[in-house]
């Protein structure tokens, strides 16, 4: 029984780490630009597709996907910011959010039109046998996803908190005019935020590709989970996004295993509503609380 519980929790942490990385990408863009990027799921899907191309189609090693895909998706995201969203900067928030929603749909449908297949399978990263710790089977892939995704998330938080780039983004979020007076360029910071968001989405895609395969539905699945994780943790808090993702993953896994499999889908929305009603700033907000 304990080994089953261990496996369920581990599976929850694995998916939670992926949700955390997704939520972090959303939070980074939102924190710097005040835009909720609903195209983030489509960026992650493109990242997963990129790893299919590199690993399966071209037969290149996995590390090439981990190096190239995040940068490529980051460049795509920054280009979209430059070409499309920059022109909408003066528009109201609703217009920008709708633009990102339809941008995501356009990217997903573009992928569907060019590669019309139900699922593209990407092989596991490791072929070696799993570890068994106290009766719990731990595959190397599971370990890699958990450790890799969480380390990437922590690195991003560190950059955001202590790096000059992060300071610029936080300054822009706090007071645009003030940040400009301090020498930060709106264009530069916004583009950088979208680049960083794209990098995180690309990384999520590479991590998730062997876990779920690549399909158009991936973009919706990942953005939904990432958004819920972000709200639970606190949409302005990178640390909250990571903790929210882990909490969501484990809650989903436990409720499905010890409640009903149908509960897996509703538990995330139940958590979302509970947090919005009783703690709209999220469970782990930044020091200065802010409503979602």
């Amino acid at each position, binding site marked *: 029984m304990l080994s089953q519980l261990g496996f*369920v929790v581990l599976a929850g942490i694995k998916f939670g780490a992926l949700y955390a990385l997704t939520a972090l990408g959303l939070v980074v863009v939102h924190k710097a630009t005040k835009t909720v990027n609903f195209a983030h799921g489509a960026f992650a899907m493109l990242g997963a597709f990129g790893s299919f191309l590199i690993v399966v189609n071209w037969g290149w090693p996995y590390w090439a996907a981990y190096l190239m895909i995040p940068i490529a998706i980051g460049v795509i995201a920054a280009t979209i910011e430059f070409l499309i969203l920059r022109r909408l900067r003066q528009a109201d928030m609703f217009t920008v959010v709708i633009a990102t929603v339809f941008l995501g749909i356009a990217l997903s449908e573009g992928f569907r039109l060019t590669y*019309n*297949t139900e699922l593209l399978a990407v092989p596991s990263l490791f072929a070696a046998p799993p570890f068994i710790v106290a009766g719990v089977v731990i595959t190397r892939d599971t370990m890699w996803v958990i450790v890799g995704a969480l380390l990437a998330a922590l690195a991003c938080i560190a950059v955001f908190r202590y790096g000059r780039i992060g300071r610029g983004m936080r300054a822009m979020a706090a007071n645009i005019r003030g940040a400009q007076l301090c020498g930060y360029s709106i264009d530069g910071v916004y583009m950088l935020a979208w680049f960083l968001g794209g990098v995180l989405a690309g990384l999520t895609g590479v991590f998730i590709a062997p876990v779920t*395969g690549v399909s158009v539905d991936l973009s919706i699945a990942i953005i939904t989970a990432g958004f819920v994780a972000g709200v639970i943790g606190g949409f302005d808090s990178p640390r909250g996004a990571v903790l929210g993702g882990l909490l969501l993953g484990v809650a989903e896994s436990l409720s499905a295993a010890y409640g009903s499999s149908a509960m897996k889908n509703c538990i995330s929305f139940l958590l979302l509503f509970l947090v919005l009603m009783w703690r709209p700033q999220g469970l782990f907000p930044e020091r200065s609380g802010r409503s979602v």
Partner: protein
Amino acid sequence: MRNLDVFGSTRSAVTVAAAIGLLALTCSSTAHAQDNGVTPSEISIGAIGALTGPLAFIGTPGRDSMTVAFNEINANGGVCGRKLHLGFEHASSPAESIAAVKKLVEQDKVFILVLASGSTGAAAAADYVRQAGVPTYNIYGSTPIIRNPFAKNVFHGAVVPVEVSAAALISMFYDDGYMPKKFGILAGTYAFPQATLKAAQDILKQKGRDFTVEQFDIGARDFTSQLVALQRQSVDSVLVLGSFSEAGFAIKQAREMGMANARWVVDGSAVSTAIIPILGNADGIRGYYNAPAFPGQTPATREFEARLKKHLGSMPQGRPSVYDLIGYGSGYVVAEAIKATNCQLTRDHLIDAWSNLKDAGPAVLGGLDITFPESYTPTDHQGVYRIGAAIVKDGQWQVYRVIDKP
């Protein structure tokens, strides 16, 4: 008389009246021909199926392979001096299926309607096609809803009724002397897994076997909860009713949980080459197959693969699938049914001819022999009762025995 003056003479008036009458008759005749989808140069066949979304793995091969078959038939002169024209409508949900079928029947006025949509679309369209009376060919749906009650205008091709496929699936657990102790069934909550689930449950109850059922939503990728439940029940034989991606990720996760020694049998829709890259090593997994040989297993299936690839440009992962083979074979069955009318191209003649069709298949009209032959009687419109038992060996699916109406 004044009217006659307009034409100059009575004789002229008669000539003009005759011409008008002839024209009206011609127009009426043309309109009649177009009413049933047949023109002097073309026979219109309409089909529905999902081209995008989670069920696209059924509809897309249907469209592509029927097109390959019709292209071959047309290149050889067509049927009854006419080319076969396929109009394919995307339909995924029940509502879309009904709308697409109505459009094809009422607006496009097709001669034959092909349901290439699997059980979801077939079940949704069942009542309408029975009422409309248009010759309907259900090529992928295993659901009983399209089969019962019997309708003289509805024919069912290579996909066998769920009772037949469920019995075949259960029989595969006992192959090679394996004796299951407890069955677990992982079933999707959508139409076709549910239809097979009910039939499988009935068989297991009749046999007095111990079993447990866990369900998952369409497109599921995380099966932790269902697998934990199966593990708790000490299941040693698992039947997966769902698509190849669902079955693939379920089995992959089960292995990670230490359920590697269980026997896995998957539904026909999961018997696809695409399940192999998901699992890495898929050897030993079994499932039923609605064709006598897997792509790559015989020269005919290899030739089909080459022709499909030429048509598509490049072969998508997991293709050709069984839906490709069936689509191709069904295209030829349609042509044979039309030919069997002796070119009396009315719907009534077609239904009569189709009801007496024997051993129909691509080979009869010079196509590739890659499907089970289809035979019909006026009281039994199920064309095929045969099914192939398939297994993954050395990373390749192969049919290892043919089951005749288990």
